């Protein structure tokens, strides 16, 4: 440091022979410091700041992130109002051909799916896990049809819900309730699994007879299923309630049947079409 500054003296601090000058702060620096204090006080008056027992001071500007988010949501809803109306008025089969509407439908359908459908069908739409009764929407197997019109109908009215007269409906009997003997059940399980090349205990030929007598009305001559009744194809590799011996036997005994709510009560038309478009493009749509 230059000699002329020696007259300010030292602070009395000394480290290994190095002394600290007691130089005054630059004036502008002090002013800046005072300005930050004034700014800080002003800020806590203008914006929410001081914690109270039930929340915090609101600030004279009335700013809150919650109202900001709400207004942002309103703004986006307003921005999308036009295309949403277009989607609502459009026939579902035409959505894919219209890039703007299709893009909006898939993106908003993804959000709708995450909110209302993922609880049963899983966030990835794979039915949570294979064989638990919630249909996997990614594969190419559809109980009630996989084109976009069929999907839209299913979303709108639901399945076996008892609250919508137009809901898809069918019921598999519980064959364990005196319909079939234990041996017949074992045999028919062996037959059904043999259609997919799987072996199990039981007589396949006798099982085929049991199947022809009791199951073909719904599942078809070749166990190929019937979409009119939502009867699953039993000859493919996909098992809604599990394909192992115990699971198939359980299905025959109790006749499981899942229900799905009718979403026309809770979603508007554009949301239903959007979610159908989203599901349709997941990889299994027909």
């Amino acid at each position, binding site marked *: *440091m*230059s*000699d002329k500054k020696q007259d*300010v*003296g*030292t*602070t*009395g*601090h*000394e*480290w*290994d022979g190095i002394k600290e000058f*007691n*130089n*005054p*702060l*630059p*004036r*502008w*620096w*002090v002013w800046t410091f005072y300005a930050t204090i004034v700014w800080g006080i002003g800020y806590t008056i203008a914006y929410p700041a001081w914690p109270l027992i039930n929340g915090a001071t609101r600030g004279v500007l009335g700013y809150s992130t919650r109202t900001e988010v709400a207004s942002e949501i309103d703004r986006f809803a307003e921005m999308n109002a036009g295309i949403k109306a277009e989607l609502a008025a459009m026939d579902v089969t035409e959505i894919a051909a219209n890039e703007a509407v299709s893009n909006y439908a898939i993106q908003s359908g993804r959000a709708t799916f995450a909110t209302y459908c993922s609880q049963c069908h*899983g*966030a*990835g739409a*794979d039915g949570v896990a*294979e064989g638990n009764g919630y249909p*996997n929407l*990614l*594969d*190419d*197997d559809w109980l009630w049809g996989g084109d976009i019109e069929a999907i839209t109908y299913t979303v709108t009215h639901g399945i076996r819900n008892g609250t919508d007269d137009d809901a898809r409906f069918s019921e598999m009997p519980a064959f364990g309730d005196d319909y079939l003997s234990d041996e017949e059940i074992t045999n028919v399980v062996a037959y059904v699994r043999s259609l*997919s090349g799987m072996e199990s205990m039981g007589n396949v030929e006798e099982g085929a007879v049991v199947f022809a007598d009791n199951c073909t009305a719904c599942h078809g001559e070749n166990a190929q299923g019937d979409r009119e009744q939502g009867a699953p*194809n039993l000859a*493919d*590799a*996909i098992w809604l309630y599990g394909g192992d011996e115990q699971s198939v036997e359980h299905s025959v005994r109790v006749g499981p049947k899942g229900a799905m709510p009718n979403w026309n009560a809770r979603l508007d038309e554009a949301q239903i079409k959007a979610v159908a478009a989203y599901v349709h*493009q997941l*990889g*299994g749509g027909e």
Partner: protein
Amino acid sequence: MATTDSPESPQKLYAAREPVFPRRVRGKFRALKWWIMALTLGVYYLTPWIRWDRGPNLPDQAVLVDLAGRRFFFFWIEIWPHEFYFIAGLLIMAGLGLFLFTSALGRVWCGYACPQTVWTDLFILTERWIEGDRNARVRLWNAKWNLRKWRLRLSKWAVWLLIGAATGGAWVFYFTDAPQLLGDLFTGNAHPVAYTTIAIMTFTTFFFGGVAREQICIYACPWPRIQAAMMDEDTVVVAYRDWRGEPRGRGKQREGLGDCIDCNACVNVCPMGIDIRDGQQLECITCALCIDACDEMMDKVGKPRGLIDYIALKDEVHERAGGHKRSLIKHVLRPRVLLYTFLWAAIGVALTVMLFVRPVIDLTVRPVRNPTFVTLSDGSVRNTYEVGVRNKHGESRPFYFTLGIDSPFMVNVEGTVETMLSVPADTEGKTRLYVTAPAGTDMARDDRTEIRIWVIDGVTGDRTFHDTVFNGRGQ
């Protein structure tokens, strides 16, 4: 250790800035500074105006930071965001370069090339044109606020504002098409961000270069506090040969006096307002204007030049012992400098090599894990991958996906049965890619299979790959 002595005397809490009025000076270092100023300002102001034809759909500006398109154009080089390591590498090189120059030549960056120095020099130059040299400026400073003082001050501030505005203007030209923006700026059609940026840059340039000047170097800049760590007794700095100059004194009678005639020329020209004869100081930016001023005086009184000189601490020891100053090259060639040079060059070479070997196509592959696989009705197993292909060309291109010619896997792009994805010019095409292992194959049965996804440019045949895994049923 700290002693427990109480402060010797109570002081004022703060002090006003002492105004600095650097006097005009001539000499080789001053000339060098003018040249460097012309060069750096020239590069800064003119670079955005260089045109570079990249074909349709791409900007024609040689150097452009395209924030909206998230790309950086530098002549024939195009940097995408994922190649930011080039920018990071350049920043590291800039840091190491600073270490290198500081260890060899002290604060040569501060004295010659730092924007703060360059613009302060420019502002002092215009101040001198308008208000006169040092003595006139001191008088004006002390004068009462009359019409003349107002006229001079206002015209000075106006010129400073113009320089500041030009600075802000040049800065925004790096971020969008320069000729277009210039027209828009004057017709009021430019983006508000451009006006705001120019306003901020104008104010900061005006304030830093015109008003705050040496205060920035002393109080705001961290570099003076760090640079001491790069310097040692071989570092060349500006120093006063007190063994030759002292005892200083005025007048013709030089008996018993050193060479210093105590003319204060070195003090008067210093833009930092210090006296170099007090020894090494934190404030000194080694701009060497005191050397020019002192040499001029030494010429006038017929003494050898170099009373104030670029000199290293080792030289001082040598000279006091009757030896000579060593050559610059001997000071510079030492392990510390060579290490910095090596590191700097190594990163430079690495970046250059990377520039030439970086892949022509960028492929990103992200396996979808929710769910990891899907069983199809025929028993085949399908995996989904989110893929991105970046088309760096100026026109739309088809890109083909494959897992290899003899691969048993089937590949198709979402929504099609094709393996082709068409990517528009200069964008990243994103899609979901389905890879299917036929029923009964090992891949469908096994837990995981290593696979390699290739993408081929349908026009040039360029290709690249990404390794990933295929999840089977795990039975």
